[in-house]
């Protein structure tokens, strides 16, 4: 049986598994006895990838089928500081699994979105998970958080998604929030107004907003970057998802 490596974002973990990505997503979301549920986001990692920080070969030796021949579901290789140590070139597709186990594959794109006018809302996913508003574009935001030596608040690597702000991007005070499910909307408007009018580029809206990210709010895609590079995983539009991945779309839009 083929052994896959998965890098789970929430919680951060590097896992070896005999399940293919869809099976792993299902297992990871609902558990072996299907008594639990919870969204999952994970990358598939190049099977040839090795790094002395991770005891990969040791885990491989343990990743063997059960006595009855059932594939091994998971062997945890690391559960701490995975993102900062992993080589981003080893990251293959990103998988988004819904709470009931439907999995969508996103592939990386070399084209990073252009800077758009207006305000931005970023959901940091790993290694920390605040919800942040900003005047910076995704690339600028990544530069500030990961590569700007003058910044007080930095992380060695980051995964984040830009979320849709709708009319709030241009008009935080009066813009409509019709299809935006964010809680505490008054506070969000206030934070957006502050970054718009004051001399600050970012402001934290919520200290820890994940673990449940509503996939439908993802504006353009997921970003993962460290000091050496930034990778971008574009999210298909809602229309594309509805026509091409209907089951996933329904599950993600509950």
């Amino acid at each position, binding site marked *: 049986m083929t052994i896959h490596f998965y890098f789970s974002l929430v919680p951060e973990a590097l896992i070896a598994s005999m399940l293919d990505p869809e099976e792993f997503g*299902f297992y990871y979301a*609902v558990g*072996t*006895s*299907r*008594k639990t*549920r919870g969204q999952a986001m994970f990358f598939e990692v190049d099977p040839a990838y090795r790094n002395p920080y991770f005891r990969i070969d040791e885990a491989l030796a343990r990743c063997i089928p059960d006595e009855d021949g059932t594939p091994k579901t998971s062997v945890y290789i690391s559960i701490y500081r995975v993102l900062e140590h992993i080589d981003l070139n080893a990251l293959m597709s990103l998988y988004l699994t*819904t*709470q*009931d*186990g439907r999995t969508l594959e996103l592939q990386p794109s070399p084209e990073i979105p252009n800077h758009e006018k207006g305000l931005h809302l970023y959901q940091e996913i790993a290694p920390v998970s605040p919800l942040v508003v900003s005047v910076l574009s995704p690339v600028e935001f990544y530069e500030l958080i990961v590569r700007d030596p003058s910044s007080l608040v930095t992380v060695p690597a980051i995964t984040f998604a830009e979320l849709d702000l709708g009319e709030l991007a241009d008009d935080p005070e009066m813009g409509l*929030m*019709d*299809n*935006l*499910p*964010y*809680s505490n*909307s008054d506070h969000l408007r206030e934070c957006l107004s502050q970054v718009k009018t004051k001399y600050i580029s970012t402001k934290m809206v919520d200290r820890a907003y994940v673990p449940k990210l*509503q996939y*439908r709010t993802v504006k353009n895609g997921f970003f993962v970057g460290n000091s050496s590079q930034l990778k971008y995983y574009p999210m298909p539009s809602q229309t594309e998802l*509805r*026509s091409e991945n*209907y*089951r996933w779309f*329904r*599950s993600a*839009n*509950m």
Partner: protein
Amino acid sequence: MDFNYSIWLVIGIVGGVLSLGVAIFLYFWVMKQDPGTKAAQEVAGWIREGAAAYLKRLYAALTTLALIISVLIGIVFSLEKGVLGAESGSTSFLPFGVVMALAFITGSLCSAVAGFMGMRVAVEANVRTATAAGKDLAGAFKLSFYAGAVLGLAMVGLAVIGMSVIYMLTHNAQAVLGFSFGASTLALLAKAGGGIYTKTADIAADLVGKVEIGIPEDDPRNPAVVADNVGDNVGDVAGMGADIFDSYVASVVAVMLLGATFGLKERLDPTLYTILPLIICSLGILASLLGIQFVRVKEGGKPGAALNRGTIITCVIFIVMLFGLKLAFPIINTGVVWAAIAGIVVGVIIGFTSDYFTNDSFAPVKETSRVSTSGSAITIITGFSYGLISIIPSVIGIVTATLTAYYIAEANGLPGIYGIGIAAVGMLAISGMIVSADAYGPIVDNARGIAEMAGMGQEVIDRADVLDAAGNTAKAITKGFSISAAALTVLALFAAFSEVMAAHGVNITISLRSPIVVAGVFLGAITPPLFSALTMLAVTNNAFDMIEEIRRQFHAEPGILAGTHKPDYARCVSLAAHGALNSLAIPAFLAVGLPLVVGFVLGPDALGGFLGGAIFTGVIFALLMSNAGGLWDNAKKYIETGKFGGPGSEAHKAAVVGDTVGDPFKDTAGPSLNTLITVMSLVSSLFAPIIAAFHLFS
């Protein structure tokens, strides 16, 4: 033109046969349509089998009950000669008790057959509608509406045939009362049982599937999904069909009974005024048959507008026919024509005002959606408050129809109460069209479910969504319509009850200065709330059992959630059916037994007060619960369209709570209450002669 009574009865029967014939023709037309892919047929097969299993159990239980009641009626009425409504000179070679028992059985049978036909076609039409939706909207709409028309036309056809034949054979309006009692008894149990079934499955499927496991609606992995879809049929097709059948027949019978007394007091021709409601119904059938032809939609059109257009055109045709009848037969009192028009106009207005409170184009649903952003408590308070307000236009409509019909009748030399009864008949005369539009709703709802479960594709689901939205509107209109018609019907039945009592030497005096009447009023007033509580508790108790079963299946077989193993759908179907039928005994006693207990113990005046109390709280509770439940449901759907945060938002979570609370309001208790008060009024009128003779308190 001479007015020949026998010919009119024959015309009534011919009209009924025509309606039934068209229903049968449409049934076979529906069956000829493409039943779709193997996967779709497999899903439809599960629903069909579940529905058939439930109906088999229901009708087996009802057959036993009907036989017991008919034997009791036979014994009791063998001692009674049916003074009221028996035409002078009418003879019967059978004892009156046997006639009444046979009429009761016939009424039950006709109601059952109408419900069965409706459900039979619904469980075949759902998959065909889904398949047709793969081609175009117009074809899918036509198919689902014609399938709904099978129930609508079969129902009115069987009702008119049954009543006309019984009257033709017996010349006794009281025998037709037996027919109506049979229809109502079955309707009450079919409606309440179907309501308990459908909400048990719906709530259990949602609470475990959506809330606990997080799987979407109509997902084939949910063990209760088939029971949920079966519930749409047993509650909204068979149940609603039996419900309207009951109101339709009861309104006619009330007027027949009143008409039959004309020879005693008013010196009017009793035979004419006894068969007049049957004539009006025959015109309503013809109007419905014509109106149905106008219900069409083009690709990209609006099915809801097509259904409303059909209803309005049917009304106009019916009104023109009424005037034509008057012109052709001047013997017919002008008051009858105007009272019937008052009924139909007010009925349509009430129907559309119900839509105002449950349609997301208007303020109540939007406002309830908006306040959902502040949590479920506010959602419930707001929805409940709008539900209370929604009573007002309907009650004003009922009052307007009552007063208009009363004074028009009086001004034209007819007893005012006869005019009220005619208004109810006028309102329900176009039931063929109204029920056709109503039964369309669960068919397209099921079609959407099948499309989802069988993976028929996004285009099919999109079209089914468009069809489904129109079904919800039709459902809201029908509920307002049927509750208001029931209110007028029971007012007429109440008058008929007084007349029966008077014919047996007991003059009903309802004065709030009489403690016995006050006692009756209070006992009557608590009956609808108690009935509502019992049926809703039945839903929660049964849902609790089903939730355990769904959890058990998910835990015992992990492959169900993975989609690699089929759930045991039949187990949930069986649980829902078993639970629903076992929950009916006490509600049935309340409807049939309590009026008799009050009558025999506290006497006729208290029974009069009892009916008055039950009618008033029954109408208010029915309107409140139907409209509040519909409002909560649509507030949730409105948010799901992307308003106030859309799916997954805090507003959505609050609205889901409101919708779950509203489910048994709108589909179990609310719609059963009009049948409850009709059954109680019928029981009282039916047993009035016996109660007049035997009661403890005078």
